[in-house]
């Protein structure tokens, strides 16, 4: 099996605030990410598709098609947007890179027609990223060594 990864950069604003928490709790839990004016990141999305290369083309999937899917599903929804206010899929969710990765997985999964979506990685900065994958069958949940 081959894994093919395509990268997309998008820039967006967000802030973290949960209306169920008091102002004090929001500040304590979210720190400076709670600033109500918002702040922004240059996000880097890496989408990995796994599959066997088609013997006639040598490709798992046409990267041009994947590029178009990423442009349509992700860039057009999220690039130069405020994630708290302008992305309906994130409505009611705190727009952390974990939640952004999960939403992007759900947007892309039905659109990948060749190969299988293997991993969605969202970098918020060079020092922080979230991965969304499919839970391995029979994997222990929350178990520790």
């Amino acid at each position, binding site marked *: 099996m081959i894994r093919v990864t395509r990268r997309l950069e998008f820039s967006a604003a967000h802030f973290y605030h949960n209306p169920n928490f008091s102002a004090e709790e929001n500040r304590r839990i979210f720190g400076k990410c709670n600033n109500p004016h918002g702040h922004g990141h240059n996000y880097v999305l890496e989408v990995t598709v796994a599959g066997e290369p088609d013997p006639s083309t040598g490709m798992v999937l046409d990267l041009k098609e994947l590029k178009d899917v990423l442009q349509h599903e992700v860039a057009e929804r999220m690039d130069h947007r405020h994630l708290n206010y302008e992305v309906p899929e994130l409505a009611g969710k705190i727009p952390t890179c974990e939640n952004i990765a999960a939403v992007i997985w759900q947007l892309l999964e039905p659109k990948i027609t060749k190969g299988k979506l293997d991993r969605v990685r969202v970098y918020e900065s060079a020092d922080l990223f979230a*991965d969304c994958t499919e839970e391995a069958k029979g*994997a222990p949940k929350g178990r520790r060594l």
Partner: protein
Amino acid sequence: MTASLKLSLTRRYRFAASHRLYRPAFSEEENRRLYGKCGNPYGHGHNYILEVTLSGPVDPQTGMVANLGELDPFVEREVIEPFDLKYLNEQVSEFQESVPTTENVCCEIYRRLKAFPSARLEKVRIQETSNNSFELGDEREAWNALDEE
């Protein structure tokens, strides 16, 4: 139907430290053969990059696998403060017994970080230089095999 999704969070930290690869139990000749210039008696250093990967359920109230406000001070206390700008062989007690290869540094950091209370430690990866990296995972595959027995 949506399959069950798994989320993990990876945070990158940096520390700089010196080390020397040398085992007193081996002869000088064996040390030279095994460790080459890494055995230079005065030691040498690296700018290490540490990647810590945690997994677990995303808390619906915070949207997080782990809160960096909790993780950063934990890693700072357990690893950065004791390792940064230190001579690992002499200033980290565990390496008085074992050679501070980056494999062993990985194991020691894993041991220190697995006590993080709010998410499961999934992987520790250390980049010793831009050409060398080492990682230690949570042996998930072995667990799966056990679970199926």
